[in-house]
């Protein structure tokens, strides 16, 4: 019995000792963070569909580290850093999540699936009613996506990394994943984790920003319209998805998988294919989001996240979202002055494209001040425009950043 090596027998503990104190501390921190995410997901403070699998994955990967045959530390979940084809084929037969990661995550398929599902949730009728106002707000709400780029570069990240982390300002998870996979693959794990963590916080954080920047009197504005809002039938919305998909794919072929996925979702919604709609808006969207959360959690291996850049990414991520929120509110104020007071500036926050969270936040804040004020239609228009502008910026960054 005295010959048994307990650290070798219980390798989870053994690797704590073998990896050194820094790695051990990071693993313990991530285990607790995973537990916290599960708790916050369960309490509905953060999105449970992403946070519960992510937190549990984070716990499992950091507890389940073992010593591999070569003497290195590893796990039986997946290895995101593999690039050699033969090695990849071998690992795919051992690590149970490696096929899912290789065939759906690292090529952006899961991001496209999520985007397709988001497309089925979008009613583009709101955007057709007021396209200029909605897109103007959405462009203002990309302030963080632009300003974070030079800030990140100033604090030592290269341009590709800066552009990837700046995309957090677009508040669109699949877009951040797609951009970082194309531009900064070595950092896509921490950037995507940071993005999803912060996106979960928008529901709790943005109301404070709105209350700080918009006085109660303006939050209570009830917008009046002379004409009744127009309703567009399905064939118009279908034409919208076809034409816009063609235009944007023409402009940015590098981001065409995203555009295609988004507008395919819209087309499915409007074409009346009930069974496909039920599949894409249900099992595909929720299944992909769940798998995305699970893979993100499993990717939170302490040795992958122990990068000196992680702290910078945490700061830059929150700066990007904060600046985008401020930009959206500035856009709301501009519209308020253009419309001579007949516009609620809170709608600006909905232009940050976290569909449909920010639109719900805007309506909730306005209803609290004035229960008669209904802004959800305009807020959803701005919200949908936010998705389109984020996709445009993704296209611009992927196309232009390598040339700068």
């Amino acid at each position, binding site marked *: 019995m005295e010959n048994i090596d307990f650290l070798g027998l219980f390798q989870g503990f053994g690797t704590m000792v073998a990896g050194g104190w820094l790695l051990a501390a990071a693993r313990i921190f991530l285990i607790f963070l995973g537990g916290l995410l599960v708790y916050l997901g369960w309490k509905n403070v953060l999105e449970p569909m992403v946070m519960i699998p992510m937190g549990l994955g984070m716990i499992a990967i950091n507890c389940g580290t073992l010593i591999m045959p070569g003497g290195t530390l590893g796990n039986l979940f997946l290895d995101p850093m593999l690039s050699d084809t033969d090695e990849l084929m071998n690992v795919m037969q051992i690590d149970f999540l490696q096929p899912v990661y290789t065939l759906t995550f690292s090529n952006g398929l899961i991001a496209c699936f999520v985007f397709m599902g988001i497309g089925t949730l979008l009613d583009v009728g709101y955007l057709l009613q007021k*396209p*200029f106002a909605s897109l103007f707000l959405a462009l203002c709400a990309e302030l963080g996506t*632009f300003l974070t780029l030079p800030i990140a570069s100033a604090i030592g990240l290269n341009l590709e990394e800066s552009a990837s982390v700046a995309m957090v300002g677009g508040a669109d998870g699949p877009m951040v994943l797609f951009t970082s996979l194309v531009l900064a693959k070595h950092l896509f794990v921490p950037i995507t984790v940071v993005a999803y963590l912060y996106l979960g916080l928008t529901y709790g954080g943005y109301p404070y920003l709105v209350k700080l920047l918009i006085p109660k009197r303006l939050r209570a504005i009830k917008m009046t319209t002379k004409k009744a809002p127009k309703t567009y039938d399905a064939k118009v919305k279908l034409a919208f998805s076809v034409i816009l998909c063609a235009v944007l794919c023409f402009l940015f072929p590098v981001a065409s998988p995203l555009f295609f996925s988004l507008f395919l979702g819209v087309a499915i919604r409007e074409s009346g294919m009930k069974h496909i709609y039920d599949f894409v808006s249900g099992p595909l969207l929720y299944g992909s989001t769940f798998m995305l959360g699970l893979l993100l959690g499993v990717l939170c291996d302490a040795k992958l996240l122990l990068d000196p850049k992680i702290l910078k990414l945490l700061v830059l991520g929150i700066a990007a979202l904060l600046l985008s929120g401020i930009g959206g509110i500035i856009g709301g104020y501009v519209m308020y002055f253009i419309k001579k007071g007949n516009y609620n500036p809170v709608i600006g926050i909905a232009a940050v494209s976290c569909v449909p969270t920010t639109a719900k936040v805007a309506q909730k804040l306005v209803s609290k001040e004035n229960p008669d004020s209904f802004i959800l239609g305009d807020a959803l228009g701005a919200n949908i425009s936010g998705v389109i502008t984020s996709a445009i910026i993704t296209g611009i960054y992927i196309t232009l950043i390598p040339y*700068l």
Partner: protein
Amino acid sequence: MLSLFISTLEMMGLTFVIGLFVAGVIKGIAFWADSLEYHHSHAAELAQFNKINKLRVKLGELLGLVSPEGTEQLDDEREDFARGENPDLANMRPEGYYHGVSHGISQLNLIDYYYPHDSHFMHLKKKGQIMKKRNSNKNKSLSPEE
């Protein structure tokens, strides 16, 4: 650093241009949808009118009445009446009338303006009957209405 900032501003400008172009495309789609809906609704209305017209012609032929073409030849004035114009009154000018100046209280009532001859005469006939009846009732002092 400055060059990066300028590049960022350029990319921002490009995004605004593309964004507004996309907004223009969306507005174009909305405009197309509106005009299509307008034409569509009017086409339906016209088709409905044609249908009614055909039915009227058929009914007229079956009953041996004058065809709509015949009605037109007889200078059908019903459309004018429908618009509130009574051609019988077109040449009636009270004394002292000239364009743009009121000639005082009109002696005409709504019936004169909005109903054709036959309706007017029927109305007067009915009015006469009512008056006659009322007078006869007055003569009967034990009438229950009184």
